[in-house]
């Protein structure tokens, strides 16, 4: 729990003492059938409905059904930017959950364990405060043996509600809503479990906690994970056709698009492989309305040939890449940011495309819309580079104004006099395709093609045209670059160290800057969401710092810096750009970033790096 809290103890009447805190990080460990993911869903929704608490929540789904599963939830009164370095509490259901995760809590932290299944170790009892509750048998006592496995999670939530003084009426309502439509006994059992947990006597636990009131959140909040936010962003943007092949963690997006799109008169097709998926999406885009495909890991590799066609033919297209650990099958359920190179440069030939990396769950929603609009405006493929971390994390964010945001992008079939899609004299060299079905009065029809072509799309071997068309495809993206806003630094625009991050690094670097500055580091941050093209003006920002450290979840490569650092080095030829990289498949800990930044800065100053 946050350091500032120790002094602020207020009386809690009889029973446990009440301590005011800013935030708490709770890790819950069990098996996947225990429904512990559901507790996360409840707590996140509670945050969405509360004026005072903000929470974020991270899951690490198990790969094996029925296997160990955990999630970590961070509840706070202020802005919560990352899943938290160390947990304040471990709630564990089994011996293996206890032993595997005890090291994730801070010294002196609380271990709340199911005493029916966990035997505490004496050596750990000295370092951590242990509180045993016979969760399994108490659940049987409350609702009988049949519902035992289903009730443990709700019982545990009751315990947490008591310990952290959570809003009981709101939680009760959420439980009722969750189980509506089911047998009434299901709701009754869930509420019984919750109340049993809530009223369990915690006299051996010394304190309970209460969050400081937060700056009032205004307006209504929605709660979802990054994959869902991306799905709904695409729908709001007007996308009505998609195609894909299942692969974790992308599958959620294709499943929800398959389920949702028919309501809007659209469709999502499950294809025989990823090549077919991107080809089908390109076909639908050619049909007149920008379509989506996506994948993760190896599926992205399979799409590169067709992606090159979309660059060459200048066809609008959105490709979602939910990054996971690579190469090859890699680490399917872990987070990594190692697809930047394939996203920006993957494929043969010079094949420019746009790459955007959303910063948070909320940003997934808006990035999807931006991707669709860039694809249409610049007639180009756009890759959305999200990652496993954002994909599965649940966050509450302000409800978007859908009536304003949702757009109609259906094609216009008005007859034109004549048309040259690859018109070299078009403003900014931007191609416009006619949807088939559109009549061209001149009787000259265009062809969309992957061969180098003339202005109508007919093949050419002319060196001059190849140069002109290559420049045209490049220049329109340069134009986009000049249209992009230069990002602002997080913290002052001068100092010792500038931490640069992209995509999901926003939360961790922002928090690292706050924490570093609070102890006197001259550290600032810079977050990039537009990866290709880059916005202009970054060089000016770099000038204000001695060190520019690019914080990325990928390997440091042969020369000591990661994939994005490589791009920045190529763009700015600035040797002070260096990398802070890791590939352990886990999200950043704030301490990790700060320690590495300080060490690297020292090493550079001593000429050792």
């Amino acid at each position, binding site marked *: 729990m946050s350091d500032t809290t120790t002094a602020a103890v207020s009386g809690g009447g009889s029973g446990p003492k009440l301590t005011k805190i800013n935030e708490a990080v709770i890790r819950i460990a069990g098996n996947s059938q225990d429904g512990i993911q559901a507790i996360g869903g409840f707590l996140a929704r509670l945050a969405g409905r509360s004026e005072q608490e903000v929470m974020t929540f991270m899951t690490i789904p198990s790969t094996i059904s029925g296997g160990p599963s955990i999630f970590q939830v961070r509840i706070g009164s202020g802005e919560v930017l990352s899943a938290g370095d160390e947990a304040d509490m471990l709630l564990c259901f089994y011996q293996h959950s206890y032993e595997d995760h005890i090291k994730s809590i801070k010294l002196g932290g609380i271990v709340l364990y199911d005493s029916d299944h966990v035997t505490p170790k004496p050596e750990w009892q000295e370092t951590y405060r242990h509180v045993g509750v016979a969760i399994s048998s108490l659940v049987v006592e409350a609702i009988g043996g049949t519902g035992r496995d289903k009730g443990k999670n709700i019982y545990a939530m009751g315990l947490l509600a008591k310990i952290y003084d959570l809003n009981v009426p709101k939680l009760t309502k959420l439980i009722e809503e969750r189980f509506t439509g089911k047998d009434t006994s299901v709701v009754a059992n869930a509420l019984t479990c919750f109340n049993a947990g809530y009223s369990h006597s915690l006299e051996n636990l010394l304190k309970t906690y209460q969050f400081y009131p937060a700056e009032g959140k205004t307006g*209504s909040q*929605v709660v979802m994970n990054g994959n869902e936010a991306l799905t*709904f962003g695409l*729908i709001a943007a007007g996308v009505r*056709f998609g*195609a894909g092949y299942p692969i974790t963690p992308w599958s959620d997006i294709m499943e929800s698009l398959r389920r949702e799109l*028919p*309501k*809007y*008169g*659209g*469709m999502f097709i499950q*294809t*025989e492989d990823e*090549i*077919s*998926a991107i080809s*089908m999406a*390109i*076909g639908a885009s*050619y*049909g*007149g309305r920008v*379509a989506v495909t996506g994948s993760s890991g190896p599926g992205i590799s399979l799409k590169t040939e*067709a992606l090159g066609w979309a660059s060459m033919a200048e066809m609008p297209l959105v490709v979602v890449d939910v990054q996971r650990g690579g190469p090859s099958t890699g680490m399917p359920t872990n987070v990594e940011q190692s697809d930047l190179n394939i996203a920006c440069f993957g494929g043969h030939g010079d094949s420019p495309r746009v790459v955007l990396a959303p*910063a*948070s769950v909320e*940003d997934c929603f808006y990035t999807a819309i931006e991707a669709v*609009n*860039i694809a*249409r*405006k610049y007639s180009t493929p756009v890759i959305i580079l999200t990652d496993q971390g954002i994909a599965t994390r649940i966050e509450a*964010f302000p*409800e978007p104004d*859908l009536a304003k*945001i*949702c*757009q*109609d*992008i*259906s094609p216009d079939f008005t*007859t*034109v*006099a*004549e*048309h040259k899609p690859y018109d070299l004299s*078009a*403003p900014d060299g931007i191609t*416009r395709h*006619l949807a*088939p*079905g559109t009549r*061209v*009065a001149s*009787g000259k*029809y265009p*062809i969309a*093609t*992957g061969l180098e072509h003339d202005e109508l799309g007919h*093949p050419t071997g002319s060196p001059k045209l190849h140069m002109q068309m290559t420049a045209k495809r490049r220049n329109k993206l340069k134009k986009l670059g000049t249209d992009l806003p230069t990002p602002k630094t997080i913290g002052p625009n001068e100092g010792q160290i500038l931490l640069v991050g992209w995509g999901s690094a926003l939360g961790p670097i922002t928090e690292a800057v706050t924490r570093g500055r609070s102890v006197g580091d001259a550290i600032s941050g810079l977050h990039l969401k537009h990866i290709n093209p880059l916005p202009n003006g970054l060089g000016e920002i770099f000038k204000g710092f001695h060190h520019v450290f690019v914080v990325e979840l990928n390997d440091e490569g042969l020369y000591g810096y990661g994939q994005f650092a490589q791009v920045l080095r190529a763009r700015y030829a600035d040797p002070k750009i260096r990398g802070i990289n890791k590939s352990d498949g886990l999200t950043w800990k704030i301490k990790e970033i700060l320690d590495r930044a300080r060490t690297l800065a020292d090493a550079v100053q001593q000429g050792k790096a």
Partner: protein
Amino acid sequence: MSTLTVPFESLARTTSTVNLPVPAPIADADRKGLTKKETAADHPTWCPGCGDFSVLALYFKLIEKRKIWHEKITTIAGIGCSSRFPYFVQAHGAHFIHGRALPFASGVSLSRPDLHVFVFGGDGDAFSIGGNHFNHTARKNIKMTYCVMDNFVYGLTKKQTSPTSPIGFKSKTDTWGAVDQPINPMKQAVSAGATFVARTSATNPNHVLAMMEAAMDHDGFSFIECLSECVEFFPGAFDASNPRKGGKFENMPEGHDVTDELAAYKLAGEPFPGRFGIFYKVNRPTKNALEAGINTAAQAKVAGKKDWEILQATFNRMK
């Protein structure tokens, strides 16, 4: 988080960049079938005598005869000599990548059921690199007409063994003669679940046109294998089916039941040059129709709502 980039400004719907005065559209009834002059685009780059010329000429005939307007035709191909087809047709079209014309065409067909989707390509494109797409497009019965111009060889890359090359064919990759069992396109199509399967030869124009018409009228995935000689790399390959070269063009046997899968399969097994005509034709709901059905059911539940209201209802459940 407060650091979001402002969503991009909303754009106008897709339109042309050329702002010239547009003549009033001609009412459909007053339009004549397009002549060859109106449908021909680039002069074909094929070798003189290549069978593909004949397929193109018959496609023009089909367009004229059936009064399909420029804007309603979409000609799609992958890569190969035969796949250059779309450049030669004055209509909307796309020249995609090797082997993937069918998925591309599926995207067009499913999202734009108002168009006539025709796909042309070679045997390598269809049965080698695109082999799996062939099976899945057939089984899903996605509405389009697919004409494979089968020359038993890789033409564009200059004489390598193709998946339909007969055993013994001497190519640059099998100088001693091909050894692998060739694919039988009729059997492949029937067993994959295609609902219209026909075979013709570029040397018999009337037959090609009849097959194209029947394929176009079929509601589903209609597949035609059209023998089309590569005079450059496999000359004389189809003489045995050409009466002018002393061969025999044999139609389907009298009374062949086109809905009989086993009969089709059996006829497909006859030795080269085999039979010509419709081997198999059944009616099964198209993917297009099945997806439309899913849409109708889903949309009935949200009848009268605007798109944003449907999304709002979903968001209301996520609070």
